[in-house]
């Protein structure tokens, strides 16, 4: 939805984007397997972060439930991966997460601000501990094996999920619902008073974002081939998307993607080069970004762009 004056800053043209996608699609043909494996991890975080931003970006409701949705997808994979075909169990993973998110969303109707944040975290952790306990007590196991899928297939599935998530994010943002979501983030009460069905919109958007996280969890589980609650519901999957989205900047669609890419690659480099210091460096970078780049990379890029125009 463009306003009366069209200002759409797009550093990337549509053509460039298309070329880039072709490049990504053909990568497995000429790139080292290690790189594909790395890209799988990068894609995982990109999708989770982008999905997170679909809901939490405009509404300003910071969800820490991403780990729950991701993990549920992973467990769906483990439980029915042997029985259903790949596309089916990936979709089911997404669907189950979607339904879970609808349920959680309806529960948290009245919670706002910090209460919403800690509630989503609490739910995520509750699910993790509950499954840990249940598996030990009733299934007599800690973790589960997942049907194995080769790296290249995982790569293509991730690419497809990424494209779907990106298209969804783009369309929501450009639609009247995207505008409505932003108004909810500004003044939820006022939004309700001009006829916006705040509850329904929030819940469905939350569920849509969960769908992609679930699908990603389902496919990543096949890459790991073994999951347990600690792996699938790792709280890092809840915290990192928030960091990455804010680092990248939530003002534009490319912000979370940029943030996730850079931070994941950075983490990879730091873990390999400085295995004993990488958390320390990560923490310092994080605090530096919070202190000096409040609008993330997007903010920085836009500021530089403005300065360039003036000069």
């Amino acid at each position, binding site marked *: 939805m463009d306003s009366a004056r069209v200002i759409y800053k797009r550093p990337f043209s549509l053509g460039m984007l298309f070329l880039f996608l072709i490049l990504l699609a053909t990568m497995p043909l000429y790139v080292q397997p290690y790189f594909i494996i790395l890209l799988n991890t990068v894609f995982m975080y990109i999708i989770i972060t982008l999905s997170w931003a679909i809901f939490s970006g405009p509404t300003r409701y910071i969800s820490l439930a991403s780990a729950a949705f991701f993990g549920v997808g992973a467990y769906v994979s483990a439980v029915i991966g042997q029985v259903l075909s790949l596309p089916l169990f990936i979709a089911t993973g997404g669907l189950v997460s979607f339904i879970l998110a609808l349920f959680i969303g309806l529960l948290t109707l009245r919670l706002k601000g910090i209460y919403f944040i*800690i509630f989503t975290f*609490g739910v995520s952790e509750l699910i993790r501990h509950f499954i840990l306990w249940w598996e030990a007590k009733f299934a007599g196991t800690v973790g589960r094996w997942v049907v194995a899928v080769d790296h290249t297939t995982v790569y293509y599935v991730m690419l497809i999920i990424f494209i779907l998530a990106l298209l969804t994010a783009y369309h929501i943002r450009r639609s009247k619902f995207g505008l409505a979501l932003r108004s909810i983030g500004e003044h939820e009460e006022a939004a309700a008073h001009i006829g916006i069905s705040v509850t329904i919109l929030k819940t469905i958007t939350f569920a849509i974002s969960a769908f992609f996280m679930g699908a990603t969890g389902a496919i990543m589980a096949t890459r790991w081939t073994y999951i347990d609650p600690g792996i699938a519901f790792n709280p890092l999957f809840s915290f990192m998307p928030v960091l990455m989205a804010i680092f990248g900047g939530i003002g534009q669609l490319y912000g979370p993607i940029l943030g996730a890419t850079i931070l994941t690659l950075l983490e990879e480099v730091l873990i390999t080069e400085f295995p004993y210091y990488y958390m320390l460096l990560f923490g*310092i970078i994080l605090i530096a970004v919070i202190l000096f780049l409040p609008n993330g990379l997007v903010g920085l890029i836009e500021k530089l762009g403005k300065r360039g125009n003036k000069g």
Partner: protein
Amino acid sequence: MFVTVLDVIIGGLISGGIYALIAVGLSLQYGVGRVLNVSHGEFIMIGAFATWSLYTVFGISPLISLVICGPIFFILGFVINRAIFEYLRSKSESIDAFAASSLLASFGLLFIIQNVALIIWKADLRGYSYLDSSVSILGAVFTANRLIALLFAVVISLSFYIFLTRTRLGKAIRAAAEDPVTAQVMGVNIHRVLAICFGLGALMAGLAGVLISMMYEMRPTMGLEYTIIAIIVVVLGGLGSITGSLVGGFILGFIGTIVTYIDPGLSLIAYYVIFILMLLVKPTGIFGK
């Protein structure tokens, strides 16, 4: 039967005392400063490890460490607040923006502090034995260090409660935590109170860490679990009610001990269920408005 009940009561008091301390620390930082400090548990962990080092390397008794660590942690909290959170506060356009950025900054602190601990002390489980002779109370058996830790936890909690309710500074802190705007109107110097609260919060964490080190083994990754328990207690007692955190800590401690008796794997689950129910039914907590 009686022995079991006694076991649970004293066990509940021990857990409760520790929970009360860590929750009060977090509550001081959140209640007045509105900073949800997720690195709170890391301060607890450092407190525990510092005590370990002081004891195993210099032979300093943990009880002395309480006195050493207190002021040091207070200063640490004070400085960190000044360097990071006050700066963020001045730069944030809204309360929600500050809540988000301070949350993330405290994550950064978490990473940094935990990594520093890993570098210094490595990842192994550590512990020391201090006053671990057995004491029998009416048939129930406890190690002396637990009883001493309980004693100190209760003493610190009580002293702090008296401080909060009887002294001017204490009352100012409570007022600021409940309603910062009104408190300021009534003459409370918010900035000074805020800085002190942050320091006190870190101090509580440090002291809790010392006491924990007397009773349990420790590893550098132990912090997060304590942070989570602190958050649960603070919500239970009421975000913004310092005394609520004190009481809530003991309540949760008792519940935890009872549940552990039934099925140890369920205690954390029980905490989370209470947490979630609280948020759904009365988010302002037992003592909140």
